[in-house]
Structures are given as structure tokens and as C-alpha cells.
């Protein structure tokens, strides 16, 4: 334990060597603890003094949280595995390249070297009001600054807003949902497995959290089953700049085609709501149909049904519609034939 004193607030730093020790520390400190994975987001919160934990629990020394294991045609990826390692992994590239594409589009090479899969999927929203230190609902207050008639909310939600209109910014999260992954979570009472689809929670359930992790739990691994191995994948991330930026909208899809017909499909969009949005209605619609422009059109239209826009984010509707269309069209969708 060392006391860090920088421009960050004072805190006690713990660097446990085992998951069990980490859980014990978290159980002891409860809401006063901050879990540190790659540190890319945590350091900003600390330097901005928007989070002032008494204890920081650094998972960096826990060997069992790192690495990729093959399991019965699938993979188990330690939560502390760096994104760049995932991008390089031969099985990820061969069978689950959707995750490779998503991971490779995160931020920048330096950030991918340091940033972890567990951190990327569990990260907090980027809402600039929330991040600016404004005491909004998500920060424990009783107002949403991003959802007023005059707010600047280009990057905010078009689905499932409930007081808070922030979105989930992760690129790997929708890929994992599309791959039917599950999340391995450890707490004082032992391990529990949560389907990726249920890992993230919206403001209606808990407005201060982005996922199901309790303060005394950590995400230890992500399991990818063989279900969608080798499917036809499509990932696209639309962002202002071609580096660094979080998605304005991203789409991840895994489609299995037999003959000319789609027989299996999982399609997920992120940055449109507080959780990755699995498009079950689109999946149902496209089963049994050919992967063509007509199907793409129908899917795109259906995908955005029920979208509710704010003052500055109406563009997300055509953007999401077009990305879903492209996901149906498949590789080469961006470019003219």
C-alpha cells in the first residue's frame, strides 16, 4: 500500500495478487473503493477530482485475470487482457474476428496496449455534462443537463432514456453481445455467470451504474461460446475522427447463411442507449431472408422504430438505420460496387 499524492486526491493504493484478495478489499471498502484496470479512464476521473475514492484497488498484479484460453471451441478471455493482445490472438482472428475488429477500432495503439477488455466493456459513459462534474442524476443529483430543450446532446441516446440520456460508449461490448458471450463475475459469495446481453443496465434500473457489478464484485473473465464461431461478421464504427474517438454509433453483427438464406443472426448497436442495443426484432425479421438490399432496407427501417430524438441527435436515426443496412449488406458495404 502506498499513498499516491499527485494532482489526484489522496487515496490508498492496493495491489492485490489474487482475485480473492481483491474481493476482500472491495468488500471491506465498499463504495469508497475504485477498481483500477488499465487506468485509462480511472486516471481522468481522479485527476479531475470527480471521483475521490478512499481506496484504489489495482487489478494489474493479478495474473489469473490475464490471458486468453481456448475452451471447447470457444474462448475465455481474462478481464485484464489488453485489447492489443486480443487483436493479435490467432483464434480471435480466425473464429471471432468481430471482436478483433471492434477491439482494433478502440482509441489509439497506446491505449489498446494498456486498455483491457474488462475495462472497455465496463467503462462509464462519456456524457460531457456528467464528465464535466455537473451534479446530474447519474452523479447523484436530480437533473439531466443533457436533456433540456437547449442542451448540447449530439452524442446522446435515441432509445430507452430514463431521466438520464447518456449512452454506452464501448466498441467491444456490442461485439461480445453479438458473439453471445457471457461475463464471469466474482464476489464475496463466489462466482456468477451473466449473459453479456444482461451485463449492462440502463438508468431505469440503476441510474448511477452502467453494469450489474456490485461494489464488491469484479469482472474476471469473458467467455465466448462457439455459437457464432466463423459466422459472417460485420463491425463498423462511425466517429468524427479516424482515431481516438468514441463511436457516434457502432454496429456489430454475426450472421450465418445457409444456401442463400440467413439462418442465424445476432445484431447489436451501441452508443444509442445506455446499454448495447440488441436488435432482436431485426434478427427475427431477417431469418430466412437473403442477404440483399431489400432485406437491408427492411432491417434498417425496423431497427430505428421507436427512436426518440433530442434536440441535436436526430442524425443518429439515419446513421443507425444505414449502419444496420450495411451490416446486412456485409463486407464491402461502404464502398461502391
Amino acid at each position: 500500500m502506498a499513498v499516491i499524492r499527485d494532482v489526484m486526491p489522496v487515496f490508498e493504493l492496493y495491489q492485490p495478487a489474487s482475485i480473492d484478495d481483491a474481493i476482500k478489499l472491495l468488500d471491506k471498502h465498499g463504495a469508497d473503493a475504485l477498481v483500477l484496470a488499465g487506468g485509462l479512464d480511472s486516471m481522468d476521473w481522479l485527476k479531475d477530482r470527480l471521483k475521490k475514492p478512499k481506496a484504489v484497488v489495482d487489478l494489474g498484479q493479478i495474473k489469473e485475470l490475464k490471458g486468453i484460453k481456448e475452451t471447447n471451441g470457444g474462448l475465455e478471455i481474462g478481464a485484464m487482457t489488453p485489447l492489443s493482445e486480443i487483436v493479435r490472438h490467432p483464434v480471435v482472428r480466425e473464429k471471432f474476428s468481430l471482436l478483433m475488429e471492434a477491439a482494433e477500432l478502440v482509441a489509439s495503439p497506446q491505449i489498446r496496449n494498456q486498455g483491457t477488455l474488462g475495462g472497455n466493456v465496463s467503462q462509464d459513459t462519456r456524457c460531457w455534462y456528467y464528465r464535466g462534474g455537473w451534479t446530474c442524476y447519474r452523479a447523484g443529483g436530480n437533473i439531466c443537463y443533457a436533456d433540456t430543450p437547449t442542451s448540447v446532446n449530439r452524442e446522446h441516446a435515441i432509445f430507452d432514456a430514463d431521466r438520464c440520456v447518456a449512452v454506452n460508449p464501448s466498441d467491444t461490448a456490442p461485439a461480445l453481445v453479438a458473439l453471445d458471450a457471457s461475463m464471469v463475475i466474482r464476489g464475496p459469495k463466489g462466482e456468477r455467470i451473466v449473459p453479456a446481453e444482461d451485463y449492462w443496465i440502463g438508468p431505469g434500473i440503476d441510474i448511477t451504474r452502467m453494469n450489474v457489478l456490485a461494489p464488491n464484485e469484479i469482472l474476471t473473465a469473458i467467455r465466448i461460446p462457439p455459437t457464432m464461431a466463423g459466422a459472417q461478421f460485420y463491425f463498423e464504427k462511425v466517429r468524427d475522427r479516424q482515431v481516438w474517438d468514441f463511436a457516434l454509433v457502432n454496429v456489430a453483427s454475426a450472421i450465418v447463411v445457409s444456401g442463400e438464406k440467413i439462418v442465424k443472426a445476432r445484431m447489436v448497436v451501441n452508443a444509442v442507449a445506455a446499454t448495447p442495443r440488441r436488435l432482436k426484432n431485426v434478427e427475427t425479421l431477417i431469418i430466412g431472408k437473403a442477404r440483399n438490399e431489400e432485406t437491408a432496407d427492411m432491417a434498417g427501417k425496423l431497427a430505428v422504430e421507436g427512436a426518440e430524438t433530442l434536440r441535436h441527435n436526430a442524425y443518429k436515426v439515419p446513421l443507425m438505420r444505414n449502419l444496420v443496412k450495411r451490416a446486412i449488406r456485409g463486407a464491402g458495404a461502404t464502398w461502391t460496387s
Partner: protein
Amino acid sequence: MANKYSWPEKPALLGTSVKRLDGPDKVTGRAKYTYDINRPGMLYGKMVRSPLPHARVVSIDLSAAEKAPGVKAVLAHVAVGAQVMYQGDPVAAVAADTEERALDAARMIRVRYEALPHFANVEQAMATDAPAVFPGGNTRQGATEETGDLVAGFAKAAHIVEATYATHVITHVCLETHGCVCEWDGDKLTAWISTQAVIQSAQQFAQALGIPQANVHTIMQYMGGGFGSKFGPDSQGIICAKLAKLAKAPVKLMLDRKEEHLDTGNRPSATAHIRAGITADGMLTAFDGQSWGTGGAGATSGFPLPYIYNFPTRKRTHKDVYINAGQQRAMRAPGHPQGCFLTEILMDELADTIKMDPVAFRVKNLPPAAPNAMWAEYFARGAKAFGWDKRHATGDPTPGPIKTGMGVSAHRWGGAGQGSQAHVDIMSDGGIVVKCGTQDIGTGTRTIVGMVAAETFGLPLSAIKVEIGDSLLPFSGGSGGSTTAASAMPAIRVTSVDALEALFAKVAPALGTAPENLVAEGGRIFIKGTPAKGLSWKDACKLIGTEPISVNGKWAQGLSGSGTSGVQFAEASVDIETGIVRVTRILAIQDCGLIVDKLTAESQAYGGVIAAINFALFEDRILDRVTGQMVNPNMEMYLLAGMSDVPKIDIMLNNMPERGVIGIGEPPTVSTASAIANAVRNATGATIRSLPLHPHKVLAALEQEKAGGTN
């Protein structure tokens, strides 16, 4: 007329590509920027700023901060009862023995505010029922400029385009933030300061602190960008000096990124409602524009309009609108990127009314050609080099979501020089020291000072020791308006020529000739036409004796010029399903008189173009309307291009040695954004009349176009 100071007709160094003298120091970290200066016993300063956009200061309680650990000085910058006019307006400051303790203490300063009504945008400030926020009015209407008979002009028009065009506010985002290190010795102040004006900073420190200018010594050896925002100590510099005086110890006060965005200047916004007429054969007839813009709290927002093209009848009014945001400062060609954008998008719309090629249309409506108005030639050269003949009419007919287009724009700038002084010493060991109180703000000034001296003495650049960036050196002006090269280079030339003459006077007797028969070339001094009859530079200098040659000189007419012109072409591809614009190619044609260092001149053009890509596609200072707070005061949400966003950029410099040296720092950044916006219009067929071209705006414009067009 040529005289002894004239630039050489066949230069050895001038106009060649020479690497920066200080490149190795910069890349190895040996170069000490202001941020790198550390003094014995140095303290760290931190400012407290208004969190509110407009408020009255009700009370300031410094007592807790004064008692905080490590705190050596605390001061209030404003009086109780005073008004703060924008988020980030300085209120108080502390100095402590560590940066962390300074931050902790700053947080303990208790300021109570009474919030007052504020404006976060021009619409709020211009509303007829707006509260009186600024003394003397929330807006200031400028005089009407009018030329010719506007009614007759519009009567001649076959087509009229009427629309509103706008550019947004961006900040300078200097990589090195503003700030300084101040150290007192009695009533003498030494300040290491990140500034574009080292001597003028000394003057401003003296005035603000009530001490003689002779008591102030300012130093700026290296700096990480200013772009027009660093012409003096500003509030943070004066506060730093006061803290150092109070604490009786040196203080370093460097701003953080948020403070940079809020309080160190910005490029004002510009909006204009324009009507313009064109004849059926493509002659402009009339321009009627009402413009407004905001330079923040009480600052102006002027810009040239219409830009460059010859509207025979024209009328223009401008209104400065004040909002509660940090004040504007000069930003790389102040006003020109705005005026250029507002005019150049209109030009493409006008050309389209008669389906005329945008280049031909522009050439037809240019003012007469002149050395500082070479657009017609550049349009022709550029069109050929860029492949303009492959440009399709408005709207890329290619099927699929990726549409590609080309655009073009023109610009002008001044860049004149004046008033620099210099000093040259030649020692008996052959050493040469060139001194000038100019500064290298990252443009390569240090290198070109050395090049001009080396050229004059017929020596390699490595033979010259260059001393700049210090207020104790001979006077030179601030680096603004692209004036540095045109001011300092003539001074260096004149002084070096005079020093060489003094050396010739010492050498001539030994060579048995008169001084006027001597030349210095290739490291030797010899009798003109007879290279064998001479001495090496080193041997020649041995004749100097114990008293070195020591010469003062100053800028003279005839070695610098004024006025530049340029044209830029852009190619962009637009993904109409995502709204993403990618610039694929830029061609920048630029003149700058006599090119001193081709490499650093090109580098200025590259930098200007990239900065303008940021202006066109990425940067945007965003204020929340309700709270008046900037929502993106960082470098995550305030966007600047990454490597992947920078296209192929070709620079074509037009060397015009007969015009003398002219500055190039600003002009290359003027027309890029307009050329990109015109390329986007050419690609998509949708006209976006405001910047930045963010994907949400592009998608919205395309949806609107689908629903029946934007015209």
C-alpha cells in the same frame, strides 16, 4: 534598385531546404521550453477562476488558503463587488511549494458570487428582449460600407443567391499552454515566458507592475505554439509576478488545458446574411451582406467581406455581438478564414446558377493581377496540377454511398516587415554571433536568422551562433501578422553586410587590395574574380585583433515586401450514409516573396493547411446555452485531427525573390476550409453553409436535400 544590401542574385543557401538548427535539441529534449524552466526554491502558482459566465463577486475569503500547508502567497485578483464576465475570468491566485499544494489551496479560496444574466450565444444576446448584460449595449453596430449603386447592380443580375453563411468559434489550442516563471531580484524581474513577443512582454510586465522596463528581463527560447494568442504576460503572467513578489521566491504558473480553452483567446464566429447577383455570362453584379459575430465578452469580431472577388456594387454592415465567453485574440490570419468561407461557398452557389466551372467563374471576377494578386495564374497552375478537368458537376453521379468531389478557394494576406534591429559580432577566432530580439515561435526563425548571416558571410549555417528570444537583445517586434521574417531578415542582412565590410577593411591591406574588391564565398575572403588571392575565413579573422568587429544595424526598405496571394484545391470523399467527410488531397499554392528556407516555409504551409482541416471538420468551442459553460474544455471532446485524418498535402511555393522577404505564417490557413466545404458540396450536391462539417450536420443536410433541396 540594387544596392550593397540587396539579396544575392545567386544565393548559396537562401531558397534551399535547410533543416532547423534546433531540431536535434527539440527531439532530444535538450531544448528548454518555459514549462521546463525550474529555479532554485521555485513555487507553483494556481489561479482561481469564475465558474459562472456572469456574476458579481460578493466576497472572497483567502484565510483558509493562507493557512494551508506549503502556501507562500495568496492574492485576490478582483475586488469584491466587481463583475466577472465569463467562465474562467480570473478571480484569485495562490503560490505554494508544490503543484499539488497550490491546487489544494486554490480549492480552499472561498468566493461567493451573485449570478447575473448571461448570454451563451449570439441569438440570446441579439434578442430584442435581452437583458442589458454589457455596459454600453450587448451589440455594437459598425458603419455601413457601400460602393456603387446596389439597386442597379441587382437589376443587372440574371440570378440572385440569397442565404446565410456562418463559421464557428474555435480556440488556439497551443500545445504548450500559456504561462511563465517569474523571479525577482529586488525590484528587477526576470520572466521566462511562453510568448510571441519577448520584448513587448517586458514592456507589458513593466507597465502592469509599475516598474521601469529596464528592470524587466524576459526570455523565450522555445515555445509550443501561439497562433496569435501569446502577445504578452496576460493576467496569468502579471499574477505570477505578483505571487513571486509576495512570496519572495520564483513562481511558475502554467495554465491547464481547460484554462487555455476558456481564457487565452479564440477565433470569433462570423455569420452573414448575403444576397448576391450574377449575370447570365458569369459576371458578379452586386453583394449585399449583413454580418455579425462574437468575439466573446466585449471583444470585436470583424472580418473582410466580400473576400477578394470583384463585386462592382456592394454593401456590407457588421455588428459585434457580445456574449459571456472568453475574449477573442488574433488567430492565424484574423478574420480571413471567416470572410473567405462566407464568400467562397457563395461563389460556388453563384457559379452553379449558370452552370459555370468554379475556377473559370472565379478567374472572370478577380481584381487585376499584381505581384500580390497572382490568383489567375495560380488557379490555372493548380487546376492543371490537381486534375481539375476530372471534376464532375455538383453531385457525384457515382452509385453507392461514397461520393467524391473537388473544391477550390483563394486567399490573400499582408506579411510586411518593419523596425527590427540586429547586432553582429565577428571575433578574431572566426566566430560569429548574430543577435536579434525576435523570437522563434516554432516557425523556424532561429534557423533563417542564421541562414541570412551565413549567406552574407559565405559560410555554412553551422558557423553562425544565433541569439534570439531575449529582451536584452536588439529590438524586434512581436511575431504577429506574419511579420517576423520580413522584419528580422532585412535587419540581419544589413547588419551582416556592414560587419563584413568592416572585416574587409581589416583584410584588404593584407591582400594588397581595396576593401570594395573583396568577396566572401565558400568559406573564403578573396579578390573578386581571383579566388586564389584570398584567405580562409579563419585566417582572415585573425587580422581582426583583440577588439572584435561589432556592428549594429536595422531593417531597411527594399529587402522585404508586402502582400501575398494563394489558391488551394481540395478533394474530399463523403460517406452519405454516415456523414463522415474525409479529405483526400489538398494542393496549396502560395507565394511569400523571397523564400529564405524552403523547408520551414513549406512547413508553415503544411501546418496552416492542417490547422484549417481542424477548423473545417473538427474543432468547435461548445457552450451550454443554459449555464454558459463550455462542455468540451479538453482535448477529448474538443477535436483536433489525428494522423489518420490528415490527407496528402502538396505545397507549391512561388519564389519571387525580386519582392524581398514576406511572411507566410498565416495565409496558408485561410482558404483550406472553404475549399473542403466546396468539395463536399461538389461531392454530395448538398450545400452546408456553416462550419464545422461534423457528420450530424452532413447527414442533416443530406436528409434535407433528399426532402427537396437546400436552395
